[in-house]
């Protein structure tokens, strides 16, 4: 397990894959990394698609901050009930063992540290785990935050799913945020199409998986960060 694999085409090593990931593959990878029995909140947008890849055996319990645990898949046709929606206001279903509660109880659950993982999108993540995902900072933007700040500080682990670069080619994993902060030192893992990064107060940013023709060196150049190569060591779950 501790032998270094440098062959990008080595398909037996999930930490080195020979193509960059599609969004679906990213979601699939996030889903596979969620420990059995976890309580998870999937943010609006791409993170929602993670639910498509969770298996029944994983026994993951989905929380939606508008007041439900045990959320099931999106509702279709006659299943649709306008009183049963997720945080993205999309009709969903209810699984056995579900429960409903009001908003204060729902956010107390989050803020009190009772969710294992929140999966969120991001504009930027810093090397210290600071998250920016609520406000572009544009002068004419109308601020709107929803539950983003609560999820950022509340969940025990915050996983971010994002493209690593902006349309202009700038890294979204940065030394210091230039977008307005959502939460400080909260992100523990970042999934991108070219690599997965773990963020730790003690060891900094570690690349735990790498895809396509990306190299550690190219990531260091792109991000300007002193990245640790964790693609050749035994992985840990990194979940607290």
């Amino acid at each position, binding site marked *: 397990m501790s032998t270094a694999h440098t062959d990008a085409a080595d398909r037996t090593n999930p930490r080195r894959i020979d193509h960059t990931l599609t969004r679906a593959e990213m979601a699939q990878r996030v889903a596979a990394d969620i420990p059995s029995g976890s309580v998870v909140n999937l943010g609006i947008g791409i993170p929602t698609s993670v639910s498509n890849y969770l298996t029944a055996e994983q026994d993951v319990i989905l929380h939606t901050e*508008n*007041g*439900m645990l045990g959320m099931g898949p999106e509702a279709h046709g006659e299943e649709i009930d306008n009183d049963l929606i997720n945080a993205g206001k999309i009709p969903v279903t209810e699984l056995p063992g579900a429960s409903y509660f*009001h908003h204060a109880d729902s956010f107390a659950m989050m803020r009190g540290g009772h969710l294992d993982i929140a999966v969120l999108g991001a504009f930027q993540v810093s090397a210290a785990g600071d998250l920016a995902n609520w406000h572009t900072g544009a002068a004419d933007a109308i*601020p709107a*935050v*929803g539950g983003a700040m*609560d999820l950022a500080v509340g969940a025990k682990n915050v996983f971010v799913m994002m493209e690593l670069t902006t349309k202009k080619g700038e890294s979204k994993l940065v030394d210091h945020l230039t977008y307005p902060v959502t939460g400080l030192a909260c992100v523990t893992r970042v999934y991108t199409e070219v690599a997965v990064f773990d963020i730790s107060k003690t060891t900094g940013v570690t690349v735990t998986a790498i895809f396509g023709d990306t190299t550690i060196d190219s990531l260091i150049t792109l991000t300007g960060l002193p990245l640790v190569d964790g693609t050749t060591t035994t992985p840990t779950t990194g979940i607290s």
Partner: protein
Amino acid sequence: MISKLHDSVDEALADIRDGATVMIGGFGQAGQPVELIDGLIRHGATDLTIVNNNAGNGEVGLALLIKSGFVRKIICSFPRQSDSQIFDARYRAGLIELEVVPQGNLAERIRAAGAGIGSFFSPTGFGTLLAEGKETRTIDGKNYVLESPIHADFSLIKAHQSDPMGNLVYRKTARNFGPIMATAAKTTIVQVTDVVDLGALDPENIITPGIYVNRIVQISQEACA
């Protein structure tokens, strides 16, 4: 027995005065007291402060209330949406004041008002634009922002069933802000789909005890659809 049932929305809303702070329940369509909002528009009280998760969608309901110029200020977590054009336009024109509050702080501040808490330290929002100017404190190594209760003159909410005393049950995620808004207002007005006899609701399952409810208006399912 004292019944809190009112015959009409208009009668139930009659004493909402200009300048009132009004909480409106609902998250998306779920739990939205559509008929009470329409009644508030007819009622015509102005200079209102509205507390809601959003700032209106499309051209109806809260958006229409805002369009009518009745809202001086809105306290919400998520004003900007794809169809929040009415709010957006008035905000950009400087015609409406906005206080954006993280959703969990919004809920906890409403709860604090109903629970008689003077203020509380919340970890949410620390170090962000939304905490600017607020008192902060480090407690056991974690950073917090001091948040104040949000009180209201009126809460307009929607529930599923009520008995004549105002004991309420909700349906699924339509519960959302109803139970906490009911506790935070001087006067809580609820629209319900069903009114049931006293004793018909199981005391174990009542979500909002009737002492938090002042007025009940029944809106049949058909009218809601």
